[in-house]
């Protein structure tokens, strides 16, 4: 009995262990049923328009300005010496053509006493001094050198000429700063004589010439005597390095320039359609005109032209636009340039800018004075409010996309719900859509019901990426991106002209909810 019982107990134990062991077949589990949902806040911020603009272009502080909360784009530049008188007054050619050759014959002198004889020659040479369109009254020289020399040479075996003592050259048209006519004394045989003409005035005569006269003094010495003979007198001179300081003149004929021209233009805007009316920039011109004359421009035509449609947009608010830059006596003067239309359609596909007009600088009889330091300095500032009236503005672009073969999130995600909650205080209504394409054929879209961000009306955009959409996205090789903007808000029949303000902002909250129901372990391990 005892042995039987012992065996029985042992048998039960062995059977229990065997059953337990045999019941433990290994399971081939390939999938995990999860039904999980992960909710992730992606982004939550209120972004000001100024920040958006700055993020788009970090140089906004150089072109963006805020005034009374309104945002303006501006461009400012200053150029000193847009026109400089020194450019065209400073360079008068040197005049070396001052060369008078005279042959003369003198008989012998048989005198016993010393004697001086002076020979006066009026206007022995004349230099023309005239400019077309101007009647020069007076020119003050910044620089210049007048030099001359005289040499008498015996001819035909004549004895040397010892009679010449002194030559004086003078001109009533070359006057010193003190009003004294130029008077140069050359003692013969002492070499070339030069005179610095700085601050001399040239006062041309009525014949528009500068004339030079001379006084030549001869001296007879009985101890030397003079046999007479044939001689040649060379009087050479030059006027070099002449620079004008100030020119006083009377205009003798109109100084004007007529232009009829056009320039091809390209705004570089591709993929945009619709219309966007922008205000024409305000131009503030600050200038200083130290010329002694004014300039008037008269623009009679300023038009954008679309060569494809024939559309012409006149930029002038009136028949013509006339601007005059008067002399300012050294002061800066500011002026707002107007007479433009208030707004233009920036997206009308213009290809050309046509402009006609003329520039009138002076009329006959106008007296002018030009200094070589005369300039026109300009500070210009162009300012345009970020303001527009947009209807059906659409930007379209096709982007190549490729998520590659290694993306297999569809193996463990059933659905991803992207939600963008917005509260848009920027006065724009924006529509977004992305169309996924495979070889040019649209196979899916980003938003099933389109995506519109309304102005001043909180709302949400939802992008539900289902398993089907996920597969389509992954096999797409292009995305057609469409971005639409309008200022025609709900309930309005016409687009509204809006002004962007610094306080405009958009509150964006983006979130994502992923959903999984079953994960295939073979796909992720």
């Amino acid at each position, binding site marked *: 009995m005892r042995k039987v019982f012992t065996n029985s107990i042992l048998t039960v134990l062995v059977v229990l262990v065997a059953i337990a062991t045999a019941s433990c077949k290994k399971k081939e589990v390939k999938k*995990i049923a999860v039904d999980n949902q992960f909710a992730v806040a992606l982004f939550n911020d209120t972004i000001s328009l100024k920040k958006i603009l700055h993020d788009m272009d970090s140089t906004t502080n150089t072109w963006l300005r805020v005034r009374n909360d309104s945002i303006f784009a501006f461009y400012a530049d200053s150029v000193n010496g847009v026109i400089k008188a020194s450019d065209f007054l400073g360079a008068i050619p040197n005049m070396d053509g001052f060369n008078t050759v005279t042959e003369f014959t003198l008989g012998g002198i048989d005198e016993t006493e010393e004697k001086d004889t002076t020979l006066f020659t009026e206007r022995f040479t004349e230099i023309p001094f005239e400019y077309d369109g101007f009647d020069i009254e007076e020119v003050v020289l910044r620089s210049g050198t007048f030099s001359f020399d005289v040499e008498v040479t015996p001819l035909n075996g004549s004895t040397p000429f010892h009679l010449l003592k002194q030559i004086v050259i003078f001109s009533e048209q070359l006057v010193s700063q003190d009003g004294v006519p130029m008077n140069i004394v050359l003692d013969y045989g002492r070499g070339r004589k030069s005179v610095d003409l700085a601050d001399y005035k040239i006062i041309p005569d009525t014949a528009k010439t500068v004339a030079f006269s001379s006084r030549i003094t001869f001296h007879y010495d009985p101890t030397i005597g003079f046999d007479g003979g044939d001689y040649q007198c060379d009087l050479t001179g030059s006027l070099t390095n002449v620079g004008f300081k100030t020119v006083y003149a009377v205009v003798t004929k109109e100084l004007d320039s007529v232009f009829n021209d056009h320039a091809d233009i390209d705004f570089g805007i591709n993929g945009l359609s619709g219309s966007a009316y922008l205000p024409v920039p305000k131009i503030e011109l600050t200038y200083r005109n130290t010329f002694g004359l004014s300039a008037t421009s008269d623009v009679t035509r300023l038009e954008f032209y679309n060569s494809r449609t024939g559309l012409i947009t006149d930029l002038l608010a009136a028949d013509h636009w006339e601007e005059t830059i008067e002399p300012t006596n050294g002061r800066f003067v500011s002026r707002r340039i107007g007479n433009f239309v208030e707004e233009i359609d920036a997206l009308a596909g213009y290809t050309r800018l046509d402009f006609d007009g003329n520039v009138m600088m002076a009329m006959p009889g106008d007296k002018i004075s030009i200094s070589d330091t005369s300039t026109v300095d300009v500070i210009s500032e162009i300012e345009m409010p970020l303001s527009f009236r947009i209807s059906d503005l659409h930007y379209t672009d096709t982007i190549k996309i490729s998520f590659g073969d290694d993306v297999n999130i569809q193996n463990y995600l059933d659905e991803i719900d992207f939600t963008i909650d917005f509260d848009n205080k920027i006065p724009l209504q924006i529509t977004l859509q992305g169309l996924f394409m495979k070889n040019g054929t649209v196979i899916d879209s980003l938003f099933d019901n389109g995506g519109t961000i309304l102005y001043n009306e909180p709302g949400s955009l939802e992008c539900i990426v289902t398993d089907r959409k996920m597969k389509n996205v992954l096999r797409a090789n292009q995305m057609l991106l469409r971005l639409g903007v309008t200022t025609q808000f709900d309930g309005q029949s016409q687009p509204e002209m809006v002004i962007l303000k610094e306080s405009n902002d958009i509150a964006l909250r983006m979130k994502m909810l992923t959903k999984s129901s079953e994960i295939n372990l073979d796909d992720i391990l």
Partner: protein
Amino acid sequence: MKKLYRFLIVAVLICSSFVTKAQNDGVVFTLMPQMPYSNYLNPGIKVPYRGIVGVGFSNISFSIYNSSIKYTNIYSTNSKGEEVIDGMKFINSLDENDNYFNFNMSMDLLNVGFRVNKLFVNLDWRMRVSTDFQFSRDFLGFFVLGNGHYLGDDNPCNFNIGIDAMAFQEIAAGFQYDINDHLTIGIRPKLLGGIANFTVTNDNTKIRTDADSYAISADVDLSIRAASVIKSDMMRIKDVTHLFDDFEVSRSVDVKENIGFGVDFGASYKFNDHWGAAAGVYDLGYIKWRDAKVKEVKKNNVSVNDELFDNYQELKNLKLDYESMLSDVVDAVWGNDSLTVGGDYKTSLKTRIMAQGYYELNPMVRFTAIAQLYKVRENMKPAITLAYSGSFWNHLNLSLSYTLSKYTGNALGVGIGVHAGPFNIYAVSDNVLAIAKMSASTVEFATAYKTAGMRFGIVFSW
């Protein structure tokens, strides 16, 4: 030698990092008729020898316990008839708050006992490791089901965890006295030396996901306490890797640092040759940990993630800075990672109360019923064990037990021992079915049963 000490200490700390709570090492091995350690849990149960000696490997036990993650709750069949891991079923099977993993280990380094007439005295030096990890249903639910299942302020995720890891040594002097032929009483005072303790209490942390924005915030209620025999100025958790830099046992270890006291006591009564009963209390005591390093975090509405992309630029570039993201969360929840020097604190032993009765037909057939109450956290959990044990040919000892417990799960235990003169060898499993699952998949093996334990040893007796 220095390296050996270092290795041992590291090993103990690593062991203590496993998590535990319940003191669930089985009782069945004490039922084997010729077991020298019959008084292991109840010092009032008579030791049937005049003397015993066990050194090093006389009594080594490992037990693991998993209260909630059960194999049958992980798998299900889908609509296609395929076997799948069912996340929802698994999470729903968990207890709302009390889910535990624990790991216990004990090893008698020296156990010497001798009888003087009616008095049996034994001295025992034992190393013990008790680690415990408790988690709430939502703690795993957050990761398995996702925070999308916890949307709304009124539907928070109770992200609660608890860690209690302790390693200590126990020097006990047991005294057992036969009052008469029927009644034996015993008591075993214990001097405890704490080696290391690490406690994390996180009972009231809630993670909320806003239903509108999906922003995640948390109410954090976290407490950490740590103490060890190692003297260290380490005040930052991340510096733990430098704990053993310039480590010297004589300078860096103070075994007198964390002292505790405990006691086991009980009595057994033999009605006649067939019937008997016993009752006892095991592990009543505490350890006082000194120079604790502590961290208390109690914050409400801490932002964990209110946006993945911090700014418009990151969003535009779809660029995430994961490092700073994680760092921000840690900073927000945790603050700086410095610990502070806290006061002393006590941890109690996992006390167990047992009452048992048996009927012995003959040495080959004894049936025992044991009722137990385990201390789990602040509650007492009941268990009933029915066991058969018998001795054959005066050499072979067998035991078979079945334990019913809502807390530990039902378990079939098997034990075998050989007594050959002074030589005793034994091996006991508290749940033999778990061992039978060794050929199954890892997941199945780890989760088929709530509990698994193994005890074995070689001890000499006369």
